[in-house]
């Protein structure tokens, strides 16, 4: 618990001083992304994303329910993440822990604040009946950077979601109305080195983490700093720029996979 991280840290920092990372990537290089969609028959939409060895599955279920009193014409969305014991020896079943809550909230905000799901189009009967969109994120294999993997999986799953109108006798099924989503990119800082898309070994010894979600116009849509280290103003600028560049690449990749 105490010696191993120190040795690991020394090793990673020494490599970094030579401009290297343990898996051979450059500091601003993203891992390979694989996206598979519609793999869960029972779900209205689903996607499995592999980010190197990290694997995340997002599933979308929809139901009919009541709107919130303060937005009677709007559908409802909720996001939950389960860090199931499948993915890591440190994850436990039971109520979600702080890490799972932060993960779910960051993914949720990424979708909600940018209005990716057009909730205003999910009203069935104002004030009475609206569609509820349940986003559930399962971590299958944990090798770092869950924020990005979960976010990409969620966007891919939403993109392929069919509103199950037939099942609720509300007409024909139709695609969930969604808008162009922002893309999250996460970097970490170890000593003075900033690295994109960390693997678990890097994440475990990182000082600070910054997730930046950017849209197709190059604008910023969400940010979340984590861990008990700090960033300078300049490092933040640099991370944002890297996130903008890589966000565009990931967006292209996502669209290609979705056949758009």
């Amino acid at each position, binding site marked *: 618990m105490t010696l191993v991280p120190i040795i690991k840290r020394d090793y990673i920092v020494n490599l970094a001083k030579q401009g290297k990372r343990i898996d051979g990537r450059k500091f601003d290089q993203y891992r390979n992304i694989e996206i598979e969609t519609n*793999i869960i*028959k*029972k779900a*209205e939409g689903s996607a499995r994303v592999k980010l190197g060895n990290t694997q995340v599955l997002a599933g979308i279920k929809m139901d009919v329910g009541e709107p919130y009193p303060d937005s009677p014409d709007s559908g409802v969305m909720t996001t939950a993440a389960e860090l199931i014991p499948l993915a890591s*020896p440190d994850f436990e*079943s*039971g109520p979600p822990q702080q890490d799972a809550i932060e993960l779910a909230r960051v993914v949720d905000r990424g979708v909600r604040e940018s209005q990716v799901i057009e909730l205003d189009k999910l009203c069935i009967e104002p004030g009475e009946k609206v569609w509820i969109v349940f986003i*559930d994120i*399962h971590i299958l*294999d944990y090798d770092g950077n869950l924020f990005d993997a979960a976010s990409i999986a969620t966007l891919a799953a939403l993109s392929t979601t069919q509103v199950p109108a037939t099942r609720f006798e509300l007409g024909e099924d139709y695609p969930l109305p969604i808008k162009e989503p922002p893309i999250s990119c996460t970097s970490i800082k170890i000593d003075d080195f900033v690295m994109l898309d960390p693997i678990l070994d890097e994440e475990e010894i990182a000082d600070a983490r910054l997730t930046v979600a950017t849209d197709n116009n190059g604008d910023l849509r969400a940010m979340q700093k984590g861990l008990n280290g700090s960033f300078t103003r300049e490092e933040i600028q640099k991370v944002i720029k890297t996130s903008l560049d890589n966000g565009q690449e990931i967006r292209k990749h996502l669209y290609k996979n979705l056949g758009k």
Partner: protein
Amino acid sequence: MKTEDVKLIDAKGIRLDGRKIDELRPIKIESGVLHRADGSCYLEWGGNKVFAAVYGPREAIPRHTQNPLRAIVNAKYNMAAFSVEDRKRPGPDRRSREISKVISEALEKVILTEQFPRSMIDVAIEVLDAEAGTRCAGLTAAGVALADAGIPMIDIPVGCAAGKIGGKVVLDLGKEEDNFGDADVPLGISPRTGEIILLQMDGHLTFDEFNTALDYAIEGCNKVSKLQKEALLRKYDTIKEGK
């Protein structure tokens, strides 16, 4: 919830999905599919999609759960919220706790737990898509993941159900068969000896029908057992060939 409107099996003994009485649904098994786990398995069985991962043996925590004579086996069966028609609340419920218990007990029978006193072996079973027979699928996947993790066992455990539909005993109930059938008999065995390590029964069977169902289920287990071994060998071959 029987209904006369659904004809689950026709006069020729052909079932709704075209299977014969003693025919399994299509099964696909892969071992070593997860990077982080000490051993893992991905299993498709009909419409079921199941992952299993093994972590351990490692020191049991909290300490008061330690058994000084043997390892404890904690299987956790979990269904994803989106794995069923109506979304399930995330996290363990009464059903999943019961299944976790019977699978843990079945696994303890085959694992050489005495070799690891004070330890625990965690087995996570995650059902991502569910369509009848998930506990047998879960036990089967757990068996492969344990073997993949190199956990010493007397045998690789395997599960398969039989049941009764439209008055006939059949192997491996599918979705409608499970909903509208007359009985379900999930079984788990240690295939080398045929010892029964998991057994439940719901519904209504005569003594003779039960014995037929048991025969079918044992035969089914044996078939699935072969698929387990092939999956494990496939991975070994892949490694040998340096792929």
